[in-house]
């Protein structure tokens, strides 16, 4: 069995400013497997980053993970951990790479010191051994002239090199799981290609499970094994990557695809989703995509569960039921999405 992490019904709440609470992550479930990449895709505010922080119990106060949520890492109940045992999970078993490497690196220590610190935090090794491992890690993430770069400070490196250093620090503990939260969003496209290649190679050589958090469907294709699309705190569609790209079925997923400009194929007017994502306190009852959905119907006023639409492919939409509309999941080509209005609230 290669499943190493199970997230079940994860709910994260924040105070709403009054006496109630809002749930920016509301019932998210997924599993990670050794040597595989799961992509969590969605737009700003969909809850994808908070979900990833919850795996390390890093949800910022006053947010909290609600009762009934479960995160299991092998035999360990992550949500039951305290103190030292929690610290041993962070970094050691689940490593993390964030979007902006400059804010995660300490400007006054050399790159070599920071990687070696990571090594020594998790393994009982000498300083010289830690430094030797730091050198190997820099090589592994593809930094040219790694021996010289050990003594460089973060500001002396380019954005792409800093992100490689962050990956080296995450790898220093030899984690089973690597969470990469928009790891290339701040980088130029040619640098992005380099970093994604490093992540793929490390996943394959170390057999790590990767949770890739991204807004970019482009970097998911040809990389992730499985995709979960999030909207308004919930997974609205999930499938193996090729299946999802072949048959995007949830109207939101279809809208995302119709919004992305392409580098090949005919140039057509884009068909964006109308409106914008409402904030957590303002989600409608029933299907949360309903007010923006071109296919909403009376049943949408009841919240749909994740329903099967194909082999290993589920979506949170009543249209998945063959009795609704007759033909099960609808496909529409790019440009077929009813034209969007402005994003007035």
């Amino acid at each position, binding site marked *: 069995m290669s499943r190493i992490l199970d997230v079940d019904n994860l709910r994260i709440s924040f105070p709403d400013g009054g006496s109630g609470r809002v749930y920016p992550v509301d019932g998210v479930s997924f599993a990670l497997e050794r040597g595989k990449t799961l992509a969590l895709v969605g*737009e*700003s505010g969909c809850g994808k980053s908070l979900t990833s922080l919850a795996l390390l119990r890093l949800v910022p106060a006053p947010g909290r993970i609600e009762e009934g949520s479960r995160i299991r890492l092998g035999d360990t109940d992550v949500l039951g951990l305290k103190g030292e045992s929690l610290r041993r999970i962070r970094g050691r078993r689940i490593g993390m790479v964030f979007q902006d490497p400059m804010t995660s690196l300490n400007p006054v220590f050399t790159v070599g010191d920071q990687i070696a610190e990571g090594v020594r935090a998790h393994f009982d090794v000498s300083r010289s051994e830690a430094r030797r491992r730091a050198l190997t890690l820099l090589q592994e993430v593809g930094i040219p002239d790694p021996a010289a770069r050990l003594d460089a400070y973060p500001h002396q490196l380019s954005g792409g090199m800093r992100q490689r250093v962050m990956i080296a620090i995450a790898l220093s503990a030899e984690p089973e799981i690597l969470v990469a939260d928009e790891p290339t969003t701040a980088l*130029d496209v040619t640098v992005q*290609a380099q970093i994604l290649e490093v992540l793929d190679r490390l996943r394959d050589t170390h057999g790590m499970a990767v949770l890739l958090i991204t807004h*970019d469907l482009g970097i998911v294709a040809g990389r992730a094994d499985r995709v979960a699309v999030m909207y308004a705190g919930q997974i609205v569609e999930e499938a193996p990557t090729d299946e999802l790209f072949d048959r995007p079925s949830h109207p939101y997923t279809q809208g995302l695809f119709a*919004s*992305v400009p392409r580098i090949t194929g005919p140039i057509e007017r*884009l068909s*964006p989703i109308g409106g914008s994502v409402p904030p957590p306190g303002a989600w409608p009852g029933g299907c949360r995509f309903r007010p923006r959905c071109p296919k909403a119907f009376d049943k949408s006023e009841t919240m749909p569960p994740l329903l099967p639409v194909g082999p290993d492919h589920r979506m949170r939409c009543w249209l998945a039921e063959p009795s609704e509309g007759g033909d099960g999941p609808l496909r529409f080509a790019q440009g077929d999405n009813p034209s969007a209005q402005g994003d007035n609230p």
Partner: protein
Amino acid sequence: MSLLQVRNLVKHYRAGGLFRADAHPVRAVEDVSFDVAKGETLALVGESGCGKSSVGRTILRLQEPTAGTATFEGSDLFTLDRVALRRMRRRMQIIFQDPYSSLNPRMTVGAAIAEGIEIHRLASGKDVGRRVGALLEEVGLDPGYAGRYPHEFSGGQRQRIGIARALAVQPSFIVCDEPVSALDVSVQAQVLNLLADLQRDRGLAYLFIAHDLAVVRQIARRVAVMYLGRIVEEGPTEDLLRRPRHPYTVALLSAVPEPDPARQRPRIVLKGDLPSPSRPPTGCPFHPRCFHPRRDQRCRVEVPLLRTVGATRAACHYAETTPSPEEAIAASG
């Protein structure tokens, strides 16, 4: 006759500040020339630090040029005095990547849009309010929003406000500096469609500055690719994407992630980092990272000039034989 002609534009920034006056200047823009015709979009595309934003800002004289000329609607932009420059700004506007930082948080949206109308005396009294309402409507916002403040709006709405403010003075030309880069994909598509509609309805010309070739393809029929301060290739967008002639364009294009597993193309992973624009390489700026099988001593010493090869103009000594990504990867083993 083009609306805007830029010739041999150079912009250097003095580096190092007060105590290092002898440091090498940052050579942000080196010898850049292009034309923009009335009602057309020219895209200026490149990665961080290539100088594309400096070009846009220098043309508008938000920064002073180091050398070169720019002619707009018959006037020499770089010799205008302050009064003439202010008059000219009514004809050329700019929208930014982050509209929030360009909107005064303590000014209502209506007041921000009205500012230009009042400064240039395009309307007075009740007409100002009517114009503001019409502009909000034109960019897809409720005219009733005029009394609200910028923080009450989403990123996409703020970008629409930024566009309305630029339109308020009835320009013929707008520099769009990464206007959709900070937006989510669904909102990005809305703003791209809006820019296309405004161009059609008002005959606007755009200099569209971007890093995303897929976005550029959507909005611009002509494109110029910049690398380390220079235009390395330019031409009709479709031709340039179909058969890029500069190796940098080949690499940039191959790195664009395609949201389709069936259309994964071979990707050229460039070696090394972008060199510092304060110490650019001699000869061809791309030569230290180039993968062209014919690159040689000439590339190290002689700056290649833009010349027509096939359907585009490329600044490569060996543009005739530039490999496709497939060929480049096969050649490197």
